[in-house]
């Protein structure tokens, strides 16, 4: 039997629940058994709608005098009167039911060439991020290191971070393969390297701000923890979005993100005492900005009692 049209029955969120092949035209859609296509929907009339093919590649819809009529979401929610022309692939709403009607020669989506494994554009983006992230870390080392050994330290820092990002991306890539959704190495690499970059810039900006506002001594640890936690959580979430398909995985990503966001600041808060002792001491006079507090020491006697 020749298929004249395909009707997709859609779920609440527009997803396809099942497909019906129609081999006669026209057909009656409704709630009653006499309808060619019957739905258990109390908002439908027994004979609700008449569907027929038109001369072109579309269809005509005719209201058979139902109570609620039908609408075409693409054209707004207002009820369509009498006979209406629609194109193949248009969704129709009747009662609480949504359907989409196709010509048998149409496809769900056009076929395109898969370039995900051969596309070099992803690699360029990835390499740019990798260079920026590793370069930034090396720059920070260069600022901190002194003396003739400095260049060695900088190169080592660069290589270390580049290797870390490659390894990290590789792990996610392997994970994504086992999760049945193959994302590319470069996609994870871009996320990994950009997360590193964002985290570093974020912490640097934060520390500069804390220093300028003379809050470095007291709040440095907690704020660093919050920024670090948020950046890492964002990175993990972005990776998970690449591999996740189901809402279950989305939930996992959110809970992971929340956990990391909470754990890291908590950890830093607990370590606050240590940071107090090991961090930068009082700010040297040459670096002190005009509004910064001058530390007043207590006497040895007060300290010891």
């Amino acid at each position, binding site marked *: 039997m020749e298929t004249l049209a395909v009707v997709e029955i859609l779920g609440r969120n527009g997803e396809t629940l099942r497909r019906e092949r129609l081999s006669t035209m026209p057909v009656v859609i409704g709630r009653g058994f006499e309808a060619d296509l019957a739905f258990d929907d109390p908002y439908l009339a027994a004979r609700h709608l008449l569907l027929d093919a038109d001369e072109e590649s579309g269809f005509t819809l005719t209201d058979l005098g139902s109570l609620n009529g039908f609408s075409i979401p693409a054209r707004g929610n207002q009820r369509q009167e009498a006979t209406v022309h629609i194109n193949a692939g248009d969704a129709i709403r009747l009662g609480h039911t949504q359907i989409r009607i196709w010509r048998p020669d149409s496809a769900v989506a056009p076929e395109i060439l898969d370039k995900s494994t051969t596309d070099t554009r992803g690699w360029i983006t990835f390499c740019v991020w990798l260079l920026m992230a590793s370069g930034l870390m090396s720059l920070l080392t260069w600022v901190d290191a*002194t003396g*003739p050994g400095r260049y060695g330290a900088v190169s080592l820092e660069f290589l270390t971070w580049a290797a870390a990002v490659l390894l990290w991306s590789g792990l996610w890539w392997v994970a994504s393969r086992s999760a049945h959704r193959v994302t590319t190495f470069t996609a994870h690499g871009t996320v990994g390297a950009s997360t590193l970059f964002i985290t570093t810039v974020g912490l640097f900006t934060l520390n500069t701000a804390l220093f300028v506002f003379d809050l470095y001594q007291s709040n440095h640890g907690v704020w660093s923890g919050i920024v670090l936690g948020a950046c890492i959580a964002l990175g993990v979430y972005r990776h998970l979005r690449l591999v996740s398909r189901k809402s279950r995985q989305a939930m996992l990503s959110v809970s992971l993100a929340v956990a990391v966001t909470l754990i890291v600041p908590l950890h830093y808060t607990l370590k606050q005492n240590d940071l*107090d002792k090991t961090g930068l*001491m009082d700010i040297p006079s040459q670096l002190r900005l005009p509004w910064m507090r001058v*530390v007043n020491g207590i006497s040895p006697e007060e*300290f*010891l009692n």
Partner: protein
Amino acid sequence: MLDSEKAGEPLPHSQFLVSWTRGLRSVLIVAALVASSFSTAASDDSVAANKGIENASRIFETAKGRIYQIRTLTQDGAAENSTGSGFLVSQDGLIATNWHVISSMVLEPGTYRVEAVRTDGLHIPVRVVAIDSMSDLALLKASGETGTPFALRRPPLAKGDKGFSLGNPKGIGFTVVEGTFNGAEEKSLTGHYHFTAPINAGMSGGPALVSSGEVFGINVARRSDGDSIGFLVPAEKLAALIAKPGKRNAAPDVLLSEARQGMIDGQEKITTDIVGQLPRVQQIGPFSLPVEPGSASRCNGSSNREEEDGYAMESISCLATLPISAGRKQLVGIFATDYRVISKLGLDPVRFAARLSDQFGSDKDDGGDRKILGLYECRTSFVTLKGGTARVSLCTRHYRQLDGLMDAHLRLVTVDSSDVGLVGELTLRGFTESNIKRLARWYLESIEWKR
């Protein structure tokens, strides 16, 4: 025992404590383990090369049945904790040895037991009956053991007099070594005799005799950095311990409190010595620093200057000790200071501050057995010194068995200068809280910053 530290050689700063620990260990090894450079058994021919062959062999013959190897074992005898030597000092089986040979048995009662091994190989169980931990002496009682005790020599020896040290380096056998009496150790709080002889590990607690066979000292330590520099506890201290009235069947808690009392007395002696006199002041950069505190401290000679990566560092460390074994290779009665003056050469202020901060270090625990030591507790504050402000951190921890004794670690770093800074450390082992405060205050108030 402190003298294992190289006195004339500067130590790398960051390794000061570590190196100390190592140094202290090598000394404790005198008692605890075997350093086997000394392998000449008394009966060996090699002794014949020595001029004193007749004396030495005669001495050993007469001492033979009256010297012992003292072993501290786990209760089940499965593992040996330490070995030393001992000798008979009374007719009814009183054996003298060093406190550090048997300290673990007293400090961890129930874990260890002590036995004496005679020259004929017989193992005899012994009890600890009296302790003078400050002099590093202990008396053991071996019931049923009889013999002619060694006589203690009263008249003092003259520098250059010959003497013979006896003992049993573990696994090698009883040995006798000849040496020269060289008077009391100078610049020391211990009051040990300096005896030039190759005293070795395991001989701790053995007697040092004059040729007539009288005991004038008890082997206690050696310098690990020198040749044949040995130390003896003067025999008078042993005589005093033997004469001390009291029970000869001491209970574990009585022994523990005797041991603790020696440590309390020892740290009091160090504290009084240091706080009681003005230290010599050494100027490094803008800082006046107290060096050679007290009468018995040693510093690492001159300050040494290192230049690296845009900053220069001069340092000096000093040490005053009256070391007493606190079990498990831990020593108490140690006072150590360390100063590092760091000056900027080409560094910008940010990097200089970072270098200074690195030198200050962190509160990382510097070891110590958890069984006998608690965890460090610290407090940090900005403290005004003479001439400037410093960030000061004081950490203390308790000895679990030794009530009232603590270790302290005080660190300071000067702030509010961008081109020169002082990092100072004060390390105290086994002091009372009040003495820690006295010494810490002495330390903080002795430093002066002239700008």
